């Protein structure tokens, strides 16, 4: 590097230990003025821990050093106030019903002006000026909910940098392009380059290889909390990067034994808000993975099949019988089971007991005369399933909220396995689950497949898909773009496929449709 390189942020020996496991292990990096540093890695690689440490949300282990420029060229330890660092998180932190001017004003101190009337024309003019610095002509009077994702991101950047103390700041962008179109990405990158050109440093956290190539001056790769590679732009190729991200060891996984049975699920040109004309077959006994980045439609498929959302078009057939669209009770009746990703909000009733949660989807089986629940039979069922999934503690009468995440998820899975589903739909089945429970959940899913269920797993965890599935469908921009099976189905191949996906083309998706409907 050149001699006049001015370092704005220096991190050395940064570690973070969570109850015995190292989430981040001895990471050292530097960001200089005008430089854009990309940080890449899989889920659980330590990316988000790094961001949280920089933001001061976690306390680093002793011996870690984070220094920022004080504006005069000297490096000083990062203070509690976080001066010198600005963050743009994935959700941007804007208030959608307020307009750009109001959002920009929110962070500013009012001082003695708290009672004097706001001079709106002047405020709007100032807001236009600030956003224009980043090359965006934004209607500052419109609620930010009506802006495009890139415009919103620019407003967030403008707010973060508006009135910064000195130009020696570092902007941290945490996967900002998740819900973007291709041309929107270009606009945001243009704004980010302007930020760097003004002399700031930028840390750019991403999972898209293409974006890293387009934007970064340098790349740091994290894996299992460690810094495994660092490269200057132009000195790395895709293959090296993927190898660094995934690691040398390739997980063989364990496929479900025996040949698959007859076709259980048949989709014919199914379409929803994000998905377009998805046609596929899943056989009984088969575990099929669904892979794709957030916003690709991966997270939508299971909800459509279960009837939680009404498909725009297309037909769903279960064992040859058509499934009525948008009718969950009918789907359950037909033998469909759905484990949603959001356990607390959607997966279970946390205030009710394990027993009550277990029997809720199929109370008919424990119902006696006059619609009464046969409590003895229900308790026996609850004990049986608690033993089956090794519930700890094995007290099914306790409220579900008192159990650990892993045990809660096992209960959610058990309540559906109890219905002997013909089609088992799983969304992020091991999210927020400890390692032991993860293995148990995989075992339960494999057993369900061996018992003749067709299983569909939508997951953002490449390792999980590689270990669990017989084949994995790759979804990009709402369409099935490929399939990995047999020896080709490896964690590395899945990561490569995800990294290689382009941002959605503008024709495919309306602005703002990246957000997943509840």
């Amino acid at each position, binding site marked *: 590097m050149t001699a006049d390189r001015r370092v704005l942020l220096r991190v050395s020996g940064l570690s973070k230990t969570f109850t015995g496991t190292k989430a981040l292990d001895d990471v050292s990096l530097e960001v200089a003025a005008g430089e854009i540093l990309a940080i890449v890695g899989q889920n659980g690689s330590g990316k988000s821990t790094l961001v949280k440490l920089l933001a001061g949300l976690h306390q680093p282990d002793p011996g870690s050093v984070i220094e920022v420029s004080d504006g005069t060229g000297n490096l000083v330890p990062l203070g509690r106030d976080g001066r010198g660092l600005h963050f743009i998180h994935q959700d941007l932190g804007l208030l959608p019903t307020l307009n750009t001017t109001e959002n920009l004003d929110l962070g500013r101190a009012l001082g003695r002006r708290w009672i004097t009337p706001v001079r709106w024309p002047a405020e709007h003019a100032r807001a236009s000026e600030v956003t224009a610095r980043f090359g965006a002509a934004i209607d500052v009077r419109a609620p930010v909910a009506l802006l495009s994702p890139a415009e919103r991101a620019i407003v967030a950047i403008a707010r973060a940098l508006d009135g910064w103390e000195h130009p020696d700041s570092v902007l941290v962008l945490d996967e900002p392009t998740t819900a973007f179109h291709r041309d929107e990405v270009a606009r945001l990158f243009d704004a980010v380059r302007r930020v760097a050109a003004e002399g700031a440093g930028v840390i750019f956290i991403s999972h898209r290889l293409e974006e890293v190539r387009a934007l970064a001056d340098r790349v740091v790769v994290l894996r299992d909390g460690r810094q495994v590679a660092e490269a200057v732009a132009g000195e790395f190729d895709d293959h090296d990067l993927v190898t660094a991200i995934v690691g040398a060891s390739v997980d063989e996984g364990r496929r479900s034994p025996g040949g698959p049975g007859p076709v259980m699920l048949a989709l014919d040109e199914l379409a929803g808000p994000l998905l377009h004309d998805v046609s596929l077959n899943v056989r009984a006994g088969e575990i099929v993975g669904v892979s794709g980045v957030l916003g690709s439609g991966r997270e939508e498929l299971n909800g459509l099949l279960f009837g939680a959302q009404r498909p725009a078009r297309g037909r769903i057939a279960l064992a040859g019988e058509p499934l009525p669209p948008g009718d969950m009770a009918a*789907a*359950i009746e037909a033998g469909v089971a759905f484990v949603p990703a959001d356990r607390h909000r959607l997966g279970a009733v946390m205030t009710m007991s394990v027993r009550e949660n277990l029997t*809720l989807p199929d109370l*008919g089986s424990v119902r006696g005369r006059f619609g009464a629940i046969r409590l003895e039979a229900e308790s026996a069922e609850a004990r049986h399933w608690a033993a089956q999934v090794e519930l700890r503690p094995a007290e099914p009468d306790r409220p579900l909220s*008192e159990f650990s995440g892993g045990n809660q998820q096992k209960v959610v899975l058990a309540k559906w396995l109890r219905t002997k589903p013909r089609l088992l739909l799983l969304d992020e089945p091991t999210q927020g689950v400890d390692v032991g429970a993860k293995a148990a959940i995989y075992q339960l899913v494999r057993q369900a497949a061996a018992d003749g269920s067709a299983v569909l797993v939508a997951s953002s965890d490449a390792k999980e898909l590689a270990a669990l599935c017989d084949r994995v469908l790759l979804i990009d921009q709402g369409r099935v773009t490929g399939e990995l099976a047999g020896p080709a189905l490896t964690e590395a191949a899945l990561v490569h496929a995800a990294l290689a996906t382009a941002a959605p083309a503008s024709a495919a998706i309306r602005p703002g449709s990246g957000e997943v409907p509840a």
Partner: protein
Amino acid sequence: MMTTAATEHNATSGGEGAGRAQGRLGARLRQSMSVGNASAVYLFALLFALFALWEPGTFLTLQNWQVLLDNQAVSGLVAIGLIAPLSAGVVDLAVGSEAGFGGIVVAWLLADHGVPIPLAIGISLIAGALVGVVMATLIARARIPSLITTLAVSSILIAVIDWISGSEQILNLGASFQDIGTDEFLGVTYPVYLLAVVSLIVWYFLERTAVGRRLRATGANLEAARLAGVRTSQMILIATVSCGVIAALAGVLASAQLATGDPTISQSYLLPAFAAAFLGSTQFHRGRFNVAGTLAAVLVLAVGVKGLQLAGAPIWLPDLFNGVALLAAVGFAQYQKSPTARTAAIRRVLRLRAGDRTANP
């Protein structure tokens, strides 16, 4: 909650066979009658002792208790009617107006139209059910929050009540109608027996049937219940319709007791019902609306008000007492539900002590 687990755990590991079963039962009984879980029972005892010493001449008479039960039958019914909607997550602020509506409809049919008594009562109950259907439609189909729906419906019902009655009392309901409200069997009036029967039905429905379980799941987490195949709109419908019918029945009994269709009674039932239901939710089944707790709460509130009245307290006292009781009940429930750092520390100490007690049976 944690005490439950600790106690039961100790009880189960304490011994085997019969001893174990006995220990478990004892522990469960101790647990369910602990001060934290059955405070209304202890409060009742305390109030009873207090007023028995203060005003023995009036408080301890049989007549006093007959009047008290008689007076509380109607407001008790309204409170019991409120349990199903609250369990299903519907905050029914129209419950008082629904009672007033039932009371005025029956009086209007009897006095102004000469409809036979059974038919008049039947029509009133059906009217109450229809109000429930309208509310469920607005909440589940039009997706208007229950708070807004029931507040608006309440206002509309009050308007209808005034329109039907001309804002005047409806008299001349006939002696045999009044008998329903005032006749006695074994020294207790009919409305008290009706309260007992309705309470039993609601208890069975909510605690023992599959539909009741689904209804409570709907109230605890609507989305999760929906994704578990519960038809949540139906559950809301069942809750509001049953509430409409029970409230209308309460109104009919009120008119019978007063021998008058009084258009102004609505508001006097709303707050006591909420106070009883919420105070009841802190009893026996912690944090869950339940029939036994609600009945205990009705009794405690009534004894409190009655005792103070006998001791010469002013006329506005019941309103004050009910308001304070509602705040205290919900505040207590929140304290039980969400431990802050401070309350968690207090509870750790309490649990340690509870552990000491149960560790050596």
